[in-house]
């Protein structure tokens, strides 16, 4: 199970032709206390780079972009009552949505864990 990362601090775990998407630990630490997550609609077709979700923190509202193209198949139901899961477990229970993978070649443009760590270190 490989985890991919974007320069905009989303992560993506691929299993077969499906992917789970969330924001990174670095992203949640920068956003601070998260109070609301606006999730995409199940069935929505996302193009890579679309604003798919908005994470609202005490500080600000931040867009979360689709790291790849595909259709939303599921959103994390736990976030409605517990948006703080994105703070406490951003790369686990605090996942945002699941989607199909329309074009597996798009994964080639994403970073692996080491490359992302280097990206964050350079910020």
């Amino acid at each position, binding site marked *: 199970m490989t985890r991919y990362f974007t320069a905009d601090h989303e992560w993506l775990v691929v299993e077969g032709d499906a992917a789970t998407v969330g924001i990174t630990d670095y992203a949640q630490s920068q956003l601070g206390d998260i*109070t609301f997550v606006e999730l995409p609609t199940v069935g929505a077709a996302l193009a890579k780079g679309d604003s798919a979700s908005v994470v609202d923190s*005490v500080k600000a509202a931040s867009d979360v972009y689709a790291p790849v193209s595909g259709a939303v198949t599921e959103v994390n139901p736990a976030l409605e009552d517990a948006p703080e899961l994105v703070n406490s477990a951003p790369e686990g229970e605090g996942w945002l949505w699941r989607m199909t993978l329309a074009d597996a070649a798009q994964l080639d443009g994403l970073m692996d864990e080491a490359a992302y760590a280097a990206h964050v270190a350079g910020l």
Partner: protein
Amino acid sequence: MSDTYDLAPIAGEKPLILTLPLDAWHRARGGRMVEFAGYHMPVQYEGILAEHQWTRAHAGLFDVSHMGQLVLRGDHAGQALEALLPGAFTTLKPGKQRYSLLLADDGGILDDLIVTNRGPDFYVVVNGATKHADIAHITARLPHGVTLDHLADHALLALQGPEAALALGALGLVPAADPARTLDSLVFMEAAPFMWNGVALGVSRSGYTGEDGFEISVHADHAVALADALLAQPQVKPIGLGARDSLRLEAGLPLYGHDLSPDIDPVEADLGFAIPARRRVADAGFRGAAQLAKAFAEGTARRRVGLLIEGRMAAREGAEVVSDGRTVGIVTSGGFAPSLERPIAMAFIETALATPGTALTLSVRGKSLAATVVSLPFHPHRYVRKGAA
């Protein structure tokens, strides 16, 4: 007074972001620094929610040294203030403070500020982002014999929360003028000078969180020692700008540059309490008096209100307020209110809709949020007033 922290940026170069006396102190305590009002300032330490709740329950220490500390001197300084501000200052007793507004010639708000009658002079605290413009505006309008000094070599700390008096009391401040003016004798909007380990402190019982608390002016050379001594008290934690904003929003207090601006007059801003009856007349003698008298007499087209928002999504500055499909106002500040556990906002809306209980809609990123007009503050003020202590 030296302008230690107010180096003018060199023309053509990127403006300098300046540092305040407690810069290293904040960084050493994990403060996440951001640019604010031209300075590096801490937006948070452990987190905005935790800092907000700590302040409401205990005592939060805020560095507000970016704000401008000014002193107006001269035999007729009170009259000079009344020519600049719509408040009553010739009748302000020594040791008392008043909230007021610096008005443009057309009655628009250039800044909001607090004036203290220190006895020999008047001490004025203005916003950091506007202080240089304020100084220029005031200096250009002062009568002969009245002078304005900028205490650029002073830091300003705010200690806010229900345990602030306990924490500051533990430092053993000694009254520096009238021995009867002890810390405990001060009530909300009163001030007195104190000595602490040989250091002069100007202390007022005031702040911008809705809680009991103090603002403490200290020479920059002693700011770190004072911050350390306060933080050594078990009731005290350092609090950043993030929680300062959520606390003042819940307290219904407007923030200059957001809820107040040159395009807004004091009546629209619902700040009529700062203008006594005798000054609500066209010939009151301050700039903007005619416009202000008209606004009081005729009412204004819009009004600052509080909005309680349904659901969890926050509406922030710039969100449109809608009623019957028509835009009727705009949010000037908003966010999640930790003490109410829901989103709240301040907005300017058409006066006819400004009655508490009115149902409105907010347009946020293409979504419609239900909102209700409520009286301010959202969270009750807990100031210590006469007879209450």
